[in-house]
């Protein structure tokens, strides 16, 4: 009657035909952008694909226990994979978008976003363990490994009877922070790429539509560009997070979980989905 008892659906292996089809589709979409878009739009799409891959890969690190974790029946954070990753990644996007106002250094902006996501996860994971330890009197224990790969702490004897483990062992905590870092970086990269394209293309498009001869001031264009880029960045984030969640099927403890071996599928799927959504996001202004 519980997700814990369910057998994991899907194998860790990669379906070669499906993967090749997905990669070909991604290349086709990049080729379309290369042919019809400006070089800047093409580079932006590549940036969006990289950002999507970072998000899809990052979600695999986030320790999510879902409903069983809420009863102390399974380790991880007691919420959904996609939503937790989105919460962390969007907190990172918030920081990255803010940094983009004051600096044009892409590296600084993306790392600021990454640290924002990592900080959100560091605080959230700490409070998960705080509640388990001080609110419920339960120590952290993994159900998937006998020893914590980072600290070497034994896990089996700290699992209470009839459960798969509970709380966040240190390796899961570190996995959560790494997931937040990747998610924040990916979301911010997508935002910056789209913002550059919109800042470049929107003035000419808006001027042509309004029929005015005088150039439209930047003060009118910037809010629209920021809003559009932010909305598409959030949308792309959710697309990639949900794809990765389907790949995980239910719960995952972090990088030490056997399900983590499915990451190549998440990366391929995220790259293809990001290429498609990115193509649409760029084409609404670039054509």
């Amino acid at each position: 009657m519980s997700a814990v008892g369910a057998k994991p659906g899907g194998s860790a292996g990669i379906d070669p035909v499906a993967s090749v089809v997905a990669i070909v589709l991604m290349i086709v979409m990049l080729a379309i952008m290369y042919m019809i878009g400006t070089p800047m739009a093409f580079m932006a799409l590549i940036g969006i694909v990289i950002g999507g891959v970072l998000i899809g890969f990052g979600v695999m690190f986030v320790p999510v226990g879902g409903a069983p974790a809420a009863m102390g029946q399974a380790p991880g954070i007691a919420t959904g994979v996609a939503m937790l990753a989105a919460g962390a990644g969007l907190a990172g996007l918030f920081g990255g978008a803010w940094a983009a106002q004051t600096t044009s250094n892409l590296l600084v902006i993306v790392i600021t976003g990454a640290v924002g996501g990592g900080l959100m996860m560091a605080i959230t994971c700490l409070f998960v363990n705080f509640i388990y330890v001080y609110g419920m009197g339960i120590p952290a224990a993994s159900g998937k490994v006998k020893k914590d790969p980072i600290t070497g702490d034994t896990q089996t004897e700290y699992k209470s009877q009839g459960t798969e483990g509970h709380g966040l062992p240190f390796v899961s905590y570190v996995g959560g922070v790494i997931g937040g870092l990747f998610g924040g970086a990916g979301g911010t990269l997508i935002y910056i790429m789209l913002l550059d394209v919109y800042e470049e293309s929107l003035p000419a498009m808006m001027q042509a539509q309004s029929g005015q001869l005088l150039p439209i001031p930047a003060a009118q264009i910037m809010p629209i560009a920021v809003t559009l880029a932010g909305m598409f960045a959030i949308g792309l984030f959710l697309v990639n997070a949900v794809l990765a969640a389907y790949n995980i099927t239910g719960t995952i403890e972090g990088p030490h979980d056997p399900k983590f071996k499915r990451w190549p599928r998440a990366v391929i799927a995220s790259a293809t989905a990001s290429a498609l959504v990115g193509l649409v996001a760029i084409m609404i202004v670039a054509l």
Partner: protein
Amino acid sequence: MENIVFGIGITALAGALATVAGAAENTESDIGSQGDPNSQVQLAPQMGYLHRIFNKAVAGEPPAYGLWIALGAGIAWAFMAMQINAILAIVLGCALATFIQGVYATTAYLGRTASLAKFGQPVFVDILKSMTTVTMAHAFVAIFTTVTMCHLINAALGHPFPLPLLGLVWGIALGAAGSATGNPFYGKERQYQTQNFGAGVPISASGNIVRYAEAGQRNSLDNGWFTAKLAGPASGVCFGLIVFLELWRTVIFEPVGAGWGAIIVGIILILIFMVIDRYIEVWARKTYGPYTKPEEVSS
């Protein structure tokens, strides 16, 4: 200098608002069984345990709060564009978003409970009348504080995102932080209060939630009272820290080293939280001890 002092003041105020928002969000979600523990509320009648617990879960907390806060922020933003006073605009926007939450809670309870009809679970109209308004009141506090926080971030600190987008971002983050922190306390400690303290709920006990209170049958107001003692405040401090530290490191350290200052401070903060977490983990292992003897000894 004045700018920095102003920024610190706004940061502190936003952190305080976020703390209240986190506490209200978690209590609202626990009264409505919106988070992951709703699985047990839904499962109990199927196992033969009929109950009077409110159950308004359709979406998880993060998307639900993303919707409500983006809605409140969007309406407030529209009113502000109509030159209505900011405070009045936020109150009106949040009130309308709260009504949407009330509709959502009503239809969710009726729909979810009606689906359990074949297991004999009745729809209690008095539960609907008394619980919905309480969740709406808590939802209003959570939505109002978060929208106000977003308005401060946008108008006073100059974040480039417009108010509705900030509402969506911080609404999802609020739901994620609140459900991650508060759910285990409600799910394990309250729903399974008869199970042993200091251990997870055995999978075999799933569905056997506590249905009786000191007098009469337990309802969700009792659950709200219980979880407001630890899960609510802990969720509040969690979300408050996330907002406060994110703003603090940006407002104070963003100008340092062309943006690298905020990054370095963020990494230091992450490492500090990591050390605290490790301390808590080791403290629990030492203080509570193992449940069974280590395998090498027993074999």
